[in-house]
């Protein structure tokens, strides 16, 4: 009973999210406007999944990486290019996208986790830059910064056939995939592996002294988190049907860092909230004062770093804990 009460907010939120397409139609926003809001929500879900994968790396293992976008972008390119040039079926394309991001994460991980301290941050950023430059150099193939588009009309689940052109079905696909990934990551953080990662974050020399193979653990979490970024990339490719070299840049990873931090690092829910909030703000500013958004972002970040390093979820938790004490 207690457990159910603890999870109630999450379940209610999930139920609400699942019926949003119907709700939008109910409040009289059908047609084009409703579709617009729905697609904004879908984008939030995609980027939320990306931020989720980042939180495993940064929030739990304490690894500040700027290379997360590599695996996101590799998966997107894996899907689009393989179906564009080799005529892969959607499932084959998805498989190759996931595979390439997994292999990419292993290759980058082998190098990056060895570099001590903040060298890790820089090495991941530089590898991100290298991959980006290579994608630009191969413009004829990858479309460079202008990108390439691909058409994947539908995804066949046997009994069910999802049309990717229908915004509602795309939305449900994104929501379903996000929820599955959330559950998987939530489970992962509660395993001994997850606990060991938190120990590494808090005190690496001690973890080492206790006999944990810290290098190997960091490598494993890097690959797992990179694969989840890859899953986010698959989703992006399916829904936006577009790939561009810009998606590989380190600034994309920096966005995930910002969303995670503002929402609350190491909470898994936080990154989702942070992504939704900041994506919404970005949309608001986009129509009104596009140059102002990065300025606001900078100020918000300074504020978070100075006053609330635990983020929104962390603040809520502290507030609730205090209320229960009284």
């Amino acid at each position, binding site marked *: 009973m207690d457990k159910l009460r603890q999870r109630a907010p999450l379940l209610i939120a999930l139920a609400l999210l699942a019926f949003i397409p119907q709700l939008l139609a109910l409040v009289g926003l059908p047609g084009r406007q409703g579709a617009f809001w729905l697609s904004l929500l879908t984008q939030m879900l995609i980027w939320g999944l990306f931020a989720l994968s980042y939180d495993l790396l940064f929030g739990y293992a304490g690894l500040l990486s700027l290379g997360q976008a590599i695996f996101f972008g590799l998966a997107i390119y894996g899907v689009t290019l393989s179906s564009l040039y080799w005529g892969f079926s959607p499932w084959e394309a998805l498989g190759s996208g996931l595979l390439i991001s997994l292999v990419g994460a292993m290759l980058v991980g082998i190098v990056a986790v060895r570099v001590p301290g*903040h*060298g890790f*941050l820089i090495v991941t950023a530089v590898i991100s830059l290298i991959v980006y*430059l290579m994608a630009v150099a191969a413009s004829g193939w990858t479309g460079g910064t202008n990108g390439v588009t691909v058409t994947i009309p539908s995804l066949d689940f046997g009994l069910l056939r999802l049309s990717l052109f229908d915004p509602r079905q795309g939305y449900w696909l994104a929501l379903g995939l996000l929820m599955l990934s959330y559950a998987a990551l939530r489970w992962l953080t509660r395993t001994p592996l997850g606990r060991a990662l938190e120990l590494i974050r808090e005190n690496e020399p001690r973890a080492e002294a206790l006999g944990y193979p810290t290098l190997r653990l960091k490598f494993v979490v890097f690959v797992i988190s990179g694969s989840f970024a890859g899953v986010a990339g698959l989703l992006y490719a399916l829904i936006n049907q577009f790939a561009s070299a810009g998606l590989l840049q380190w600034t994309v990873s920096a966005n995930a860092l910002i969303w995670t931090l503002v929402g609350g690092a190491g909470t898994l829910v936080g990154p989702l909230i942070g992504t939704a909030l900041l994506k919404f703000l970005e949309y608001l500013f986009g129509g009104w004062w596009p140059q102002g958004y990065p300025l606001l972002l*900078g100020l918000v*970040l300074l504020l978070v770093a*100075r006053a609330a*390093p635990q983020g929104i979820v962390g603040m809520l938790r502290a507030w609730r804990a205090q209320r229960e004490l009284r």
Partner: protein
Amino acid sequence: MALGLNLIYGILRIVNFAHGALYMLGAVLAWVLWPLLGFWGALIVAPLLVGVLGLGVEWLVLRPIEGRPLLSIIATFALMLIIQQTVLLSFGGGQQQLSNPWSWSFPLFGLRYPGYRLFVALLAMLSVAGLWLFLQRTQVGRWVRAVSSDGELAAGLGLPVPLVYGLAFGLGSYLAALAGVLVAPIVSVDYLMGFDVLIPAFIIVIVGGAGSLGGSLLVALALGEAENLLPFLAQPFLGQPMQPTLARALTLALLIALLLFRPQGLFGRRPVGP
């Protein structure tokens, strides 16, 4: 450019994302001050302004979260965004081309080599020498090195550690802006120019070894040379000159490969303690 970054990184152990923005700020200020003060005036005033700004930023933003490197990194990232957008809003997003302050050139290997570039190279060498002398020979320089090798011990000995932090950040900012002013006539100036140099500057510091000026310098030179030479070296194999973006990617990949064998950098010592 990389010198200032190395100073900040080596001493404060902070990855400074605002560095590219400060470099850009130097170049933009050069463009603004040029008509008022002339080139020499801009060369002296702009870095000083940015250096003072760096001092202020360190005191206002970084001091309160000292000792929490993750937050400090994020704060510098926020500063980068703020500086970039402020410049964009106040000076616009267009590219500016500054005229060359010296028009004379001299022949070098059959090419006309602009004299201004020689001047830049000379001044860069002078800055390196000056920084080295400052760190090795002066009292304050000795403090800086002490704080760099062990901040807690230095504080225990009664050294003004916060002052040293501020000074290092200010000086680093000054050097970034100096680099910005110097390259302003060579490249086109716009609010995003700091972006392109930031990551290469980082890798220079890491591969050269944090806190090692000589290492930074050597790697910076090697990076520049390799980027220019690779396209020609690859020509026989490819049958055509290599694309500059690919050459840059390859050079960076080589530097990363170096880190596999020496994770602490070429001239860095293993960090002591956590």
